């Protein structure tokens, strides 16, 4: 059998997804045995122009991590889409916008004003701003266009599979790699490397009746080790989040923050979380409800932490 042709790429990313691939550990050698890696900027030398020279659909599978923040990310997403038979959105940034997607609370001007103006260490009396094109004696220097809105990979090009997680758990990456090698991928459009149900289903904590009279933030309490965190008043995104990670954060005594994205059939993870939280509030008059809700100080940041660009509203109005 011919070896698979693989490409890995990163756009607006933290590098954690690349480390997640390294976390395959010794299995990375098995990957190398089954596939030729044609592109992997973090670990291998390559050139853009090599990629451009490939015929269309030259690459079998492209694992693309990172959100789309600027024109360069968009260009590479389009290029690699054209050159790849199968495009996988790898990690929560590519799937949902991820942490970089939280920049959608501001726009380009807002980001620039803060970064290049207001920040206390910045010394910029002339009000210099990065330019997409700048003339220097040796010629012209260019920078990619920085967009107002961070987008997901799927909002930029058609995506065949979504492999979520911030970063995806190594055992799930391995499962997906095996499926790829065996040619046993599910129908296009599917999520891969995930469990069918929510994080709650994977969570070992004891769940009883959920009724909450007061919410607490993680720094305010040392939770009991066995009992459901939500029942202890900690906002845990487990009920609205797709399983697959093995409830990793909960094992570290911290609530789920929702990195695997919404469960199947849920369009908006935040809306789903909102309902889940509301349904356990133990109060039946407006004043009582308000008192409890006041303790949830940042619903947008809490419920859309990994998926603002993927939400119905996609960004904040500025």
């Amino acid at each position: 059998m011919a070896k698979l042709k693989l490409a890995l790429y990163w756009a607006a990313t933290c590098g954690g997804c690349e480390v997640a691939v390294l976390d395959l550990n010794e299995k990375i050698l098995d990957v190398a045995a089954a596939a030729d890696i044609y592109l992997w900027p973090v670990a291998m030398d390559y050139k853009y122009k090599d990629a451009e020279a490939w015929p269309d659909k030259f690459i079998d599978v492209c694992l693309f991590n990172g959100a789309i923040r600027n024109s360069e990310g968009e260009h590479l997403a389009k290029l690699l889409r054209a050159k790849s038979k199968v495009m996988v959105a790898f990690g929560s940034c590519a799937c949902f916008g991820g942490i970089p997607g939280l920049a959608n609370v501001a726009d380009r001007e807002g980001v620039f004003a803060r970064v290049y103006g207001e920040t206390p260490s910045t010394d910029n009396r002339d009000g210099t701003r990065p330019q997409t094109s700048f003339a220097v004696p040796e010629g012209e220097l260019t920078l990619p266009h920085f967009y107002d809105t961070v987008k997901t990979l799927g909002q930029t090009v058609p995506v065949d599979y979504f492999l979520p997680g911030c970063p995806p758990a190594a055992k799930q990456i391995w499962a997906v790699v095996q499926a790829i090698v065996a040619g046993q991928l599910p129908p296009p459009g599917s999520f891969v490397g995930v469990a069918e149900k929510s994080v709650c289903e994977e969570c070992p904590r004891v769940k009883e009746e959920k009724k909450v009279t007061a919410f607490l933030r993680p720094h305010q309490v040392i939770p009991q080790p066995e009992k459901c965190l939500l029942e202890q008043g900690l906002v845990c995104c487990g009920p609205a989040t797709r399983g697959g990670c093995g409830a990793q954060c909960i094992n570290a005594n911290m609530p789920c923050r929702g990195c695997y994205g919404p469960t199947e059939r849920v369009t908006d993870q935040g809306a789903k979380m909102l309902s889940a939280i509301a349904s356990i509030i133990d109060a039946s008059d407006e004043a009582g409800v308000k008192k409890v809700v006041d303790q949830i100080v940042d619903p947008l940041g809490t419920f859309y932490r990994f998926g603002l660009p993927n939400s119905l509203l996609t960004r904040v109005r500025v």
Partner: protein
Amino acid sequence: MASCKATDAVYHVEPPPAGRKLRELFYSAHYVHSHIAHFYALAAPDFVVGPEAPPAERNILGVVAKVGLEIGGQVIKHRAYAQEIQATLGGKATHPVCGLPGGMSKALTEEERVNVEAKAKSCVEFGKLSAKIFNDVVLANKAYVDLILSDAYTHKTYYMGLVDASNKVNFYDGAIRVVDQGGREFGRFAPADYLEHVGERVEPWSYLKFPYLRKVGWKGFVDGPDSGVYRVGPLGRLNASEGMATPLAQEEYERFYATLGGKPVHNTLATHWARLVELLNAAERLYELSRDDEITEPKVRTIPTARPTEGVGVVEAPRGTLFHHYQTDEKGLVRKVNLIVATGNNHAAICMSVKKAAQGLIKAGTKITQGILNKVEMAFRAYDPCFACATHSLPGEMPLELLVYDAGGQLVQRATQNMD
């Protein structure tokens, strides 16, 4: 980790001893992972496989082919150990969730400790092995040593790093120490005072700013005592310190300076060796902490009671000094943030290094080959594999365009890498 410390400061709270030690244990494991990955996957291809080897072999798989599967397996195993230790405490190794204002979310059980101890011990051995590999493969090869010492990869700048009370390198905590081009102390300050010492310049051709020492001032992309350009990272830390806090690392530190001609070392490519000195240091510290009497204490967190305000947290990230500065409202919601990230500190120096490497390697009539382009790129790779970490807005590959002009200003050659 810088953000944990910044939130401690915001909430005016100190972690209990075990909380603090667990953070340091976690962080030592992080260093072990990061330095192994950086050295073997990103630097070793240039040295072990060779700077002029074809790109298709100049990668981690090429390294494994060269050093053999046995050592390759060791590399993978120990990086995995370090990741497992982090996951034990943090839920996951990358983006751990264990850090909270006032300490950690989870204590270490005795069973986990025994496991950590065994892995840490093995990591110390691996640290020794790595130093030996560097010795045998790089230092024994005169061509490589010449390359490291060559003027093309040299810049006389200030250096910055965190140090403990006796000026030994510390990754997690301490005072920020700055030394000058002659290795003399130029400044020593508490992280909370960083704004007096560090300023950032904006250039129209980069999204990433250019930090410099305010007390010296920004004089452009030049080195020397009159320019505020400073360097951080393994080389910066070693230069800015008076040694390592653990014995094996201290020995290697001494050998480092003895071999490279005394302190400070200005040779950019020596960063890789400095990284291995630190790998030993991190592994030794990891082992030390895994055997600490207090490490399994159940009390790992102090619940904050003060009103949150503003705070600065600084650690040494593997690639250099990392500053987090938050201002919050009375609920502790962050309203303003300022970050100076590790590689950001080196930005001006990176630009200078790339330029100088290009000037040093390419003379009139030099034919620009892949190998030369890569040697220019090596000047960059010593600092960081990518800029994405530093800007958080750009993709991480390195577009490189080399335009060679003759004395009359005529373009004589153009060579590019990763550009369209």
